[in-house]
Each structure stands twice: as structure tokens, then as C-alpha cells.
């Protein structure tokens, strides 16, 4: 069985300022959402882990698309996050299947990314919105990169679908000024600092 993708949605946001002085480099955020059939909708299925492997090509494809959207330079990308919205016929646990194929694809394509990919998930209706957390891709504690991005797909997920989301970003929050660890201070060894 392969993954049945009904549609994909791509979002790209450029942030120039938020009331303060415009930054030299705008903050760039890109999200990719795939609406896939949930093969386990409508009943309890004990063994679901095999679906993680089937989702791996989709994770790679979406990650490639995000890198392209952000200027085709993986070296500039320094933030990421992921999430899932499960349609009403499914189970929260089905969204957890996205952790491995989504997370590992982004890490692989971003090269030496060490940090955990932050995530959130929920069961939701058509058009449900999900706030995807974003953190620095090499050091989770970089304070200027704690961010998030709201994603929704009109008309999805239907009851037997899941919306699977990946997010990548370039740069800190546009007026970051609350101190803490900076991106240029990280050691990048343990994924935290």
C-alpha cells in the first residue's frame, strides 16, 4: 500500500517588520501541508508502525519543496517544526506516525541539524488550524528562534484523512530582543545549546 495524497498546500511568509525598524533580512517562513488518506480511520488498528516507512518519501519530497521555496540554499535555513491534524475518523496516535518520516527527512536535507524537531498534533475538523512550533535547527535553546506558524488547509482533513505539515524558516523573530542564547553563539553539538 502506498500513500494516497489528495492535495498539497504550500505557504510562504516574508516578514519585514512588526512596528519597529525593518530588519536587513526579512524573516522567511515556509510550510508544506499534505492531505493524505488515513489508512486506519474508522476502527482501532494495533499495528500501525509500518505506515511510518511509507510516509518517508513524502517527507523527503515536502522537505525538498520547502528548501526550494526558501531560496534553494539549505545552509540559510535555521528553524524547523512539524505537526499533524487527524480527521474525525482517526486517532491522535495516527498523527504520531509523522514524527519519524517528517523529522528525519528535514534533518537529513538540512545537513548537520542536531536539534529535536518541535511538534504538535490534534484531531480536527475541515479547515482546522494548527499552530506549529518552530525552534532553531541546531540548538533548541536559541531564544531568538522560538517561533510558530499557523497552518490550515481549507476542506481538509476529511474524516478519513490526515493533514501532515512541515515548516522551515530563515532567521530570528523579526524584532527579537529578549536576550538568551544567540544563533551565533551556539556550539551545535548536543542539539540544545
Amino acid at each position, binding site marked *: 500500500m502506498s500513500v494516497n495524497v489528495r492535495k498539497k498546500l504550500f505557504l510562504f511568509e516574508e516578514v519585514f517588520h512588526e512596528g519597529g525598524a525593518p530588519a536587513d533580512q526579512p524573516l522567511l517562513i515556509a510550510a508544506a501541508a499534505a492531505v493524505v488518506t488515513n489508512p486506519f480511520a474508522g476502527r482501532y488498528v494495533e*499495528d500501525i*508502525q509500518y505506515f511510518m516507512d511509507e510516509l518517508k518519501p513524502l517527507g523527503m519530497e515536502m522537505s525538498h519543496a520547502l528548501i526550494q521555496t526558501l531560496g534553494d540554499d539549505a545552509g540559510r535555513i535555521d528553524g524547523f517544526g512539524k505537526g499533524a491534524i487527524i480527521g474525525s475518523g482517526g486517532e491522535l*496516535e495516527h498523527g504520531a506516525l509523522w514524527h519519524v518520516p517528517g523529522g528525519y527527512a528535514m534533518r537529513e536535507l538540512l545537513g548537520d541539524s542536531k536539534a529535536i524537531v*518541535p511538534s*504538535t498534533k490534534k484531531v480536527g475538523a475541515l479547515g482546522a488550524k494548527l499552530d506549529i*512550533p518552530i525552534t532553531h535547527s541546531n540548538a*533548541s535553546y536559541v531564544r531568538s528562534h522560538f517561533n510558530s506558524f499557523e497552518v490550515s488547509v481549507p476542506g481538509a482533513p476529511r474524516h478519513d484523512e490526515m493533514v501532515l505539515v512541515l515548516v522551515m524558516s530563515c532567521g530570528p523573530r523579526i524584532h*527579537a530582543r529578549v536576550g538568551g542564547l544567540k544563533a551565533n553563539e551556539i556550539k551545535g553539538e548536543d542539539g*540544545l545549546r
Partner: protein
Amino acid sequence: MKATVRKYQTVVEETLREIGIDIDPPTRKATAMAVIANPFAGHYQEDLSLLMDIGAELGDILGRKAVAALGIDPTESQSYGKAAIVGSRGELEHAAAILHPKLGAPLRAALEKGAALVPSVKKMGDLGSAIDVPLGHKDAAYVRSHFDGMEVRVSDAPRADEIVVCVAVTDSGRPLPRVGGLTHEDAEGKDGLR
């Protein structure tokens, strides 16, 4: 107290059955929220230290409220998360000032441990805006059964000059975890990751 609080709201969610299967004991998550005045609404303020101090106050207050709502001993808490919704006359960075510099330490004190990063989200919003608070294991971020989230909202907040601050705490992971990975039982909880 530095924060001007208009109201608190606490939500507890207990899952007893999922897709026809009994969950025993039920999984439980709680989010405590404070609706506060945004002292910097309507203008650009360079120094955000007042909001950082407010974050410290709320880490303690909301952490204790969430634990109390679950009716557990603080040591029984298993995962946590935090979030903020800034009303339209504020700025996203106001949420960052509340959440990141000082909120974590008093929250960890209220839970009596917390080696892992507190996962977070923030957004600009209006009355009744929903926010998905991310959840992660409080001592070992890679515990896969505890990757979760909780959607919350306050129907009449945030007004344009308000901020909704959220702290979520659980005593459990997802209802029927079976996607493998590190488990709560196997986590060492020393480095915050595993």
C-alpha cells in the same frame, strides 16, 4: 504583583475512551491560562524586562494552578508546554518576553523537576482565538509517547491590549501510544533529551 490579571481560566481534559478502547487510567492534561493587560500595547517598547518579570510570576502561578487542577502531586507530572496569544495592539515579541527568559524556572520549581526544554508557540490573535499548546516530556524531550498538544481558547480574550498566557501540564502521554521510540519508563531524564 506586576501582572494586571483580568481573569484566570483552567481547562482539564480526561480521555476515557479512544476509538472504542477503554483508557485505564484515563490520560489527563490541564492548561491554566491568565488574561493579562499588555503594558506595551499600542507602541514600540525597546526594553521588555517588565514582561519578563511577569513571565516569572505566571510560570509559578499557572504551573501550580495546572497541577492543582489535575489533583496530582507535582512529582507526578509528566509533560508540559507553554504558549501566548497577543492582542492586536501588541507585538509577537511581547509573547517571547513573557515565555522565554524567566517563565521556565518557576514552572520547573512548581513541578519539582523539568530537565527538558518547555515546548512553546505564540501568535497574534483576537477574542476567542485558539492556540495549540505543544506538549513534550518534562525530563526527556525524545519520549515519543508524550509528543502531543492541547488546543485552548478564552472566549472573550485577548482584547487588543491584552495577552493570554498558557501553561499546560499532564500526568500522562497520548491515550494509546504505539509508534515506538523512547518511553517514559526508559527515560533517564538527566540531559533533558533522553
